[in-house]
């Protein structure tokens, strides 16, 4: 099969670059238009219109926002720790994007006789006819999402401001407590699937028109994972690190211009990732009717499911007020972690007898 580089065909590299570009651009666009969708949806839920002026029904609003933020003055506080201050937005942003590497967003498509699995970190082995992906994909995602907290803590510390530091501290406390609950709740899924590879998990959920989805077998785990993920990415009602009413703007109080925009991009990219992960683990990933006949439908179902969950995130934001700090800790440590442990034990007992 033509030219080979390091034992892999050239097509492998082309497909890889194409997949990376497509997924990255897609996530970026989704992030940009998630801000617009959020303002529009929350607007209508509050019987307002949302952005209406830039373009038809405000469709160019994300572009206007981006240009505005880009041309804003860059301010670095004199007392800030400059290097950490500059590097913090990047540390928040990069893990938010690279988690997408292991999420499968479609089945196998065939381009010019070469089979490409629609998952960035995966390749189709022609000899054995199998798809190989990162076999600890979920661990990778959990690791990357906990790296994101460093960006926020660093931003809070490096700003050398009370509000930022408070925001950073809250973020670290909150993320650590909810990471535990989120991690424990998905263990129940791995007990059923017996694998950590996201590709295999999606495969396991393919049959029976949606009844094989893990949300059917593990509704409690799905609910807990989604809520804990909201807390982990600092979405309302758990947006304590940037609680405007108490902390001005939390960890990003001292940030301006593009660095401020980076934190917001990270927040929304995290939202996309978390929704994509929930879809993959609980809502059958890219599975849907007729995917076997038309592989291109896989990404369509995947995107539809992810967008639905993002809508739910915005819906929650429009409905619920922010939790108080002690309520947040109570919910994390005294409700979700025990529930997740009980869920694991029950799953184990049922799994043993069936």
């Amino acid at each position, binding site marked *: 099969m033509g030219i080979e580089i390091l034992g892999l065909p050239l097509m492998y590299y082309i497909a890889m670059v194409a997949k990376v570009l497509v997924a990255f651009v897609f996530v970026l666009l989704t992030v940009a238009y998630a801000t617009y969708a959020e303002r529009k949806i929350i607007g*209508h839920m509050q*019987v*307002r*219109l949302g952005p*209406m002026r830039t373009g038809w029904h405000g469709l160019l609003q994300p572009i206007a926002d981006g240009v505005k933020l880009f041309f804003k003055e860059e301010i670095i506080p004199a007392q800030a720790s400059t290097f950490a201050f500059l590097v913090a937005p990047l540390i928040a942003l990069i893990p938010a994007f690279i988690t997408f590497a292991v999420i499968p967003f479609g089945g196998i498509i065939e381009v010019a006789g070469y089979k490409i699995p629609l998952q960035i970190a995966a390749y189709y082995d022609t000899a054995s006819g199998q798809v190989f992906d990162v076999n600890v994909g979920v661990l990778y995602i959990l690791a990357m999402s906990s790296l994101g907290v460093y960006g926020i803590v660093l931003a809070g510390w490096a700003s050398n401001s009370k509000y930022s530091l408070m925001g950073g501290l809250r973020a670290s406390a909150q993320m650590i407590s909810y990471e535990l609950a989120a991690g424990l709740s998905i263990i129940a899924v791995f007990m059923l699937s017996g694998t950590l590879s996201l590709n295999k998990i999606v495969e396991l959920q393919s049959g029976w028109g949606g009844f094989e989805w893990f949300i059917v077998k593990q509704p409690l785990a799905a609910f807990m994972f989604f809520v804990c993920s909201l807390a982990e990415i600092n979405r309302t009602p758990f947006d304590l690190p940037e609680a405007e009413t108490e902390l001005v703007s939390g960890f990003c109080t001292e940030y301006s211009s593009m660095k401020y925009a980076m934190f917001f991009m990270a927040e929304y990219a995290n939202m996309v990732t978390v929704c994509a992960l929930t879809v993959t683990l609980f809502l059958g990933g890219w599975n849907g009717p007729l995917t076997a006949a038309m592989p291109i439908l896989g990404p369509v179902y995947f995107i539809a499911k992810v967008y639905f969950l993002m809508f739910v995130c915005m819906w929650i934001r429009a*409905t619920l007020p922010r939790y108080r700090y002690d309520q947040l800790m109570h919910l994390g440590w005294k409700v979700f972690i025990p529930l997740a442990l009980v869920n694991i034990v029950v799953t184990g007992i049922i799994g043993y007898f069936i």
Partner: protein
Amino acid sequence: MNPITPIINGMKITFKHMFMKPVTLQYPTERPKVAERYRGLHGLKVSHSKAKCVACYLCPTVCPAKCIRVEAGEDANHDKFASVYEIDMLRCIFCGYCVEACPVDALKMTGEFELANYKRSDFLYTKERLLEK
């Protein structure tokens, strides 16, 4: 009460509201309907192509903000008329006492509410600017 029910109820309410007609008024393109008795910019009423005002000084007397300045003059028919009639819109509190006090019904308040200007001096509305069109 369990903690889940109120959350679900709240979500139901927000979902219903999403399909309601927004109350937003697209202001510069859509205009608000001003109430009939709205107290906006003053207007000097005109009769027989001149202002009805007879310069009786009742409006500057009753004005709590002391924003009206009137000077009387005498016209060709030896009638008293207001040669100067100025209202300082920066001081005016739009109470409408001047309109109530006027014995000849020469003053009214219009629905005009966009009174912004670029210069302080522009807020001094002279007789020409106050005359009704």
